[in-house]
């Protein structure tokens, strides 16, 4: 062990990189070790087929914290965002709904299905933003600790509570309901048109093993509105060059501040003795010593894989073992010869945002039912983007990349997860057939296709059970319970070992919060 580092970060996902950048900026000697040949983890761009660069996993950015963009000077290091223009929902009868960034156009579109809904739609957006404003402080600070008797903590909690109460009774009622209702029930209270409700409700189920009628999905919709109020860029957007653009900018910033980053450097295990982390052992046998070890991998991989149960208190290990992953989504990335021909729409304006295959609430619920009993959805919910229209750098001239996020594809299919390789192409076919029905002729335009099942996400991207958020974002796995009661503040029961990935508060998505908040905790009284 020649060199000693202040901190070694395991995993070059965007959170690991963010954490490293903050530590380096504070003058610490930092090393990032990434198993794969590219950086970014689930926020990655790869040239999967010659000339076609895909956002292989995550595909749109919304919640990347503006203060992180500022602190790490990400714009200077190449981060460029392109806003989504619209949200398009094709229907089986050849009709479609398109919600535009222009409210007036949206009103006209919705009123074809319901005049009443068209009038209420902007009001709904305002109401949700209002509530997102109240929920937002939660994603910008470490989790509150209800078990603490520390007066400062209690004051913080009270402040949150006050924030909650700082509203008319009507608002309060709505807020309370939002946390317990299903997305579909909640939308039923506002709107009548299924065509509108279905694509809206899906923002409550992304990455969860829940249906739009499952209680507790309504508040997840808030996330959709949180990006909107940041003001840094309009709600959802593409990163130029794919979502890897975000990770690459963070990596450039980290390097600028002095961090060293290595790829093809898989960590075999965390070196522990006497309940204390002392460094890491690489797959090639090298041992690297560090004062602090930070894991950007998910909690199961970190604690049961890299650390090992024997180093952990029993109670904590049990909590990690029952932390729920059960991935529910897959990804199909397609290289296209031409744009998909959705009937009734000319040009490509309607394709410059996201396309939601969500033709009805019952359709979505049936898709969920398939998954509940151990199969992928025969007719799934698909969220499609075609970033090459607005970012020509990712495809050869005239050609396109099509990214399809698909739900549901349960990790635990009834044949057993290890049988996914045999089911993979059938799953890909179900996705293509579904799109073909809405855009006849689409299949003829396919040049190449990459299908990622949750099994593949686990193998290739280190996402346990293919969960895209490092563990479900259900209420019992959030805030002071993420990833375990008593250990929600990036510290772990192993001394000098930290958790900075999406399995820590506030959770998954291209946010950067866990990484940044972990670094801040380490620097701020954390002994570094």
């Amino acid at each position, binding site marked *: 062990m020649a060199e000693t580092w202040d901190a070694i970060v395991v995993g070059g996902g965007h959170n690991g990189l963010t954490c490293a950048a903050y530590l380096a900026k504070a003058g610490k000697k930092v090393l990032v070790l990434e198993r794969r040949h590219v950086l970014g983890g689930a926020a990655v761009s790869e040239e999967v087929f010659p000339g076609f660069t895909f956002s292989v996993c995550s595909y749109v950015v919304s919640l990347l914290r503006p203060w992180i963009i500022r602190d790490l000077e990400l714009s200077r290091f190449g981060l460029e965002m392109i806003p989504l223009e619209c949200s398009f929902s094709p229907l089986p009868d050849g009709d479609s709904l398109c919600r535009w960034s222009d409210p007036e156009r949206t009103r006209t579109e919705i009123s074809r299905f319901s005049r009443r809904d068209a009038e209420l739609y902007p009001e709904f957006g305002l109401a949700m933003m209002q509530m997102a404003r109240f929920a937002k402080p939660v994603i910008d600070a470490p989790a509150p600790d*209800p078990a603490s008797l520390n007066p400062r903590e209690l004051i913080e909690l009270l402040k949150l509570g006050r924030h909650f109460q700082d509203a008319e009774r009507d608002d309060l009622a709505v807020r309370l309901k939002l946390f317990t209702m299903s997305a579909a029930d909640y939308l039923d209270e506002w709107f009548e048109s299924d065509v509108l409700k279905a694509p809206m409700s899906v923002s409550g189920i992304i990455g969860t093993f829940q249906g739009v009628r499952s209680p507790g999905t309504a508040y997840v919709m808030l996330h959709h509105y949180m990006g909107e109020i940041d003001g840094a860029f309009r709600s959802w957007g593409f990163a130029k060059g794919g979502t890897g653009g975000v990770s690459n900018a963070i990596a450039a910033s980290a390097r600028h501040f002095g961090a060293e980053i290595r790829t093809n450097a898989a960590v075999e295990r965390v070196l522990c003795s006497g309940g204390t982390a002392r460094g890491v052992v690489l797959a090639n046998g090298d041992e690297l010593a560090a004062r602090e070890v930070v894991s950007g991998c998910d909690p199961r991989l970190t604690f049961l894989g890299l650390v090992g149960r024997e180093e952990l208190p029993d109670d904590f290990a049990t909590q990690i073992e029952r932390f729920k992953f059960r991935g529910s989504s897959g990804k199909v990335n397609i290289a296209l010869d031409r744009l998909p021909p959705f009937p009734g729409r000319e040009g490509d304006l309607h394709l410059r945002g996201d396309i939601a295959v969500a033709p009805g609430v019952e359709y979505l619920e049936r898709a969920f039912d398939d998954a509940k009993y151990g199969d992928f959805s025969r007719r799934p919910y698909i969220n499609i983007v075609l970033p090459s229209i607005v970012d020509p750098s990712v495809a050869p001239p005239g050609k396109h990349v099509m990214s399809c996020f698909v739900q549901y594809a349960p990790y635990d299919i009834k044949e057993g997860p290890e049988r996914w390789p045999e089911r993979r192409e059938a799953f890909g076919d179900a996705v293509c057939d579904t799109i073909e029905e809405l855009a006849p002729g689409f299949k003829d335009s396919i040049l190449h296709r990459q299908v990622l099942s949750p099994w593949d996400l686990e193998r290739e991207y280190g996402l346990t059970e293919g969960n895209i958020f490092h563990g479900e974002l259900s209420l019992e796995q959030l805030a002071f319970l993420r990833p375990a009661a008593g250990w929600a503040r990036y510290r772990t029961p192993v001394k000098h070992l930290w958790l900075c990935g999406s399995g820590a508060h506030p959770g998954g998505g291209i946010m950067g919060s866990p990484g940044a908040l972990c670094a801040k905790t380490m620097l701020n009284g954390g002994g570094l």
Partner: protein
Amino acid sequence: MADAIVVGGGLEGLTAAAFLAKAGRRVCVLEASETLGGVHAGSEIAPGFRAPGVAHDVAGARREVLAPLGLDVAWRDPAPLLVADGDEGLWIHRDVARTQAGLSSADADAYGRWRATIERWAPIVRRVLDERPPEIATPSIAELWDLARTGLALRKLGERDMLELMRVAPMAARDWMEERFESPRLAAGLVAPALLATTVGPRAAGTCAAMLLRESAAGREPEGGPAALVDALVARCKSAGVELRTGAAVERIRLEEGRATGVLLAGGETVDASLVVSALDFATTMLDRIDSVALPLELEQAAKAWKRRGAIAAVRLALSEPPAFAAAGGEPVERACTARDLVQLERAADALKYGDLPEDPWLDARVFPAEKGAVVSLLVHGVPRALRGGWDDAARERVGDRAVDAFERAAPGTGANLVARDVLTPVDVEARFGLAGGHLFGGELGLDQLWFQRPCLPCGRYATPIEGLWLAGPSSHPGGPYPGGAGALAAAAIG
């Protein structure tokens, strides 16, 4: 002139009336039908076969809350529950050790620990069930103090237990059961009672909270069943001078200048009072019994949004012989549940979602002795109020057939002893008892419709924004499955 009119002579109405009379008020109960007791009132389904009310179980009755009434009721431990749908089954007793005797050693162990956890938490849950919900929009100092006390009780559990309770409460029952038990039937038997009349399956978030409520509330039941509780309440009302009028259907609750001043009966008679206490469900009270022009907008919206999707059919069988359960090993059976595993419960909820009848429904069954044999009361889960294609006689008979088939699997030979059967679909329940949506509990028991949100924030503490109008029915905290609670707490709030 009465001080207070109670609309509806079901359990909650009678309870409210008895407490109000005890507090010195002159009370008049107005009941539409010819009998008191609402869904708990018994009736004859065939000559010689007197059945209890369709609400056949009152083990959730708030005994402590009712205690001041000094009811003439003998309370007993409920009979054990047989969970079986064929030759194999298991018994769930009140007594932990007896339940454990029928389980695998791993499950016996896990069950012991699970029950111990519930017992530690139950006092806190019961405290919530048996107290008026807090004012949370604009709490007074005293109310803040009360909330703090509940908070402190929670803290006294110790950090580990407290965090565990906060973790479990919003969870899906299936996940909790999978963490603990290996027997699918045990899981199903524990979860099923909490799902009764909900529209969700065991995978739904929040079903653990429903389980916690059920388990903590489960107590003793009146000897003689629900009817005995009704009789005791009626006797208490009479002795306290309550005027009990049957055949008196309330057409309208009268409002003058935004204030409730009495009611108008179906026959045209008006009855005046300074207080009107509605023991009907929330939606019926607001949307059917109050002139829509006079109804404040916030109440109209809340009543329309009130979720009350009926999910149960009640099937009563008149049998010449008591049923013989294949898995009972010759033991007498009073309570049975035919749930097999959590997948069956989930599929029943799926059917409900799409407005279909479940292929393979599960039953909550009670067996009662009758003069000429036995009456079996079955609650069939997963029967939608909004049936695809609508309800007609054929659909009603189909429900009856599926219920009999399912019961036949648990108790072979039942069909041969069948003398008569009486099937109430959610539509029939709605028509017969005036329960909106045909929902058993006066409205669903999702997290968003409990406690201070039951039935809505402005009415979460029994008072309503309409001066002089109070709610005391099953749509108020603690709700339908916990008889006596709403009636008693409402009366206490009125003072």
